[in-house]
């Protein structure tokens, strides 16, 4: 399990995370379903999880966290904890990875 905390050191506008090439994903009824072709397992994210993953893969983690804090009216540390858990789960499942060269 990854123990890195995200959103610590913004480097540039490059997202810190990406969905690997072996993962297919799509939106379904506001949620996200991912298919890991290597494990042939499906994974479902609710609307909030989908929003977090979308933001983390479109912008640097720091910017994503700032936007999430604003949009969901939640304390940064609470949000960071939840996002860390989600990222760890997704990374362990091979559904998310850090962009090469990050960190």
């Amino acid at each position, binding site marked *: 399990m990854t123990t890195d905390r995200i959103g610590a050191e913004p480097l540039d506008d490059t997202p810190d995370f990406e969905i690997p090439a072996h993962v297919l994903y*799509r939106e*379904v009824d506001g949620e996200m*379903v991912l298919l890991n*072709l290597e494990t*042939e397992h*499906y994974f*479902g994210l609710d609307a909030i999880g989908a929003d977090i993953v979308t933001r983390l893969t479109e912008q640097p983690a720091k910017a994503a966290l700032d936007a999430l804090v604003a949009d969901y009216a939640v304390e940064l540390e609470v949000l960071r904890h939840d996002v860390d858990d989600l990222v760890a789960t997704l990374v362990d499942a091979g559904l998310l990875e850090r962009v090469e060269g990050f960190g």
Partner: protein
Amino acid sequence: MSQSELHEHRGYLADERKVAAYRAALAEVVMPADVVLDLGAGTGMLGYFACEAGAKSVIAVDRGDIIGLARRIAADNGYEDRIAHIRAVSVEARVATPVDVAVCDQIGGLVHDAGILTCFADARRRLLAPGGRLVPAAFRIFLVPVTFDLGRGTVEFWASKPAGLDVGAARVVAVNTEAKYNLTPDDLTALAPGAEVAAFASDHDDPIRGSATFVVEEAGRFDGFVGWFEACMSPSITITNDPWSADRIDRWCNFYPVDEALDVGPGDRVRLRLDVRPRLGVVSWSGDVARGRVDRRHYRHSTFRGSFLTAETVGTFVRDAPVPRSDRLDTLGEVLHLIDGSRTQSDVVEALGDRIGSAFVSSAELEAFVRNVVTLAR
């Protein structure tokens, strides 16, 4: 059986090239005293050919009610003593002793799309004797970039605002669908020579990956790829649905569109990566088009994006999430409780109505629910 089902099976029997190839292949492969397994038997044709070839017995398996018709046809042709019929999904069929040969005609347009790979892989694991033979034994698949007006038109229809409605959401589905077309050379133009993308045994249900680079020879509009197979039926017999082959069988080909058509010219390179997951039923195709060193277009498609999915459906795929309780499950529990081995279906319907009839919008729905459960039980 519906008229369309019967029509489908008529087509299988009427394809003289394919019928002759299966008959000749079974004559080569089947040895006297062999037990032959016919998976997805339909009317049972392949089992009769196996009997002609000298099989001691045939086990014909089909999930549909057509198995009753196959039983009748077997009797009408004098094979009732040599053919056993099992109504079951192929991967759930059981046999008393391992079989020597398995035969199947569920090849689809590009092999993965009609179930033969998963059926044969399962048969190899559970049903075939060591050294058991498969008909077909192996496949090669080919693709070629094409100009294909009908295929492009089918995609762009969804952007055309038919009936004045914005149905563009369906276009995403259309460009991520492997579409079936019965093709002749008049229907499309090959922009480059076709290329073999993968070759594999017929019991291969692991991922199939392949790639090819096509150098365009004919100027035209790149609409996507058309794919076909070549099946090795026996040491001396092959069949193909290659639209340009004079010997092609009467079988559709699969068209893999790209999102936006692109005009290409001689010397342009079209690269393709194909990824087929037989167990998942997912096909992905991606690549790029380049002129010299200039990238002109990248494309990435998958039937995963083209399938109709709802949150409810997705929930059945996600195996790591808790299965939620529902009123429907509770109703199912009631029905299962009522099925005690002595009640008739009518008894179950009546008792369920007395207990929880208000859970159904009508008595017809209640009866249909019970009938579905009873069907599962058989």
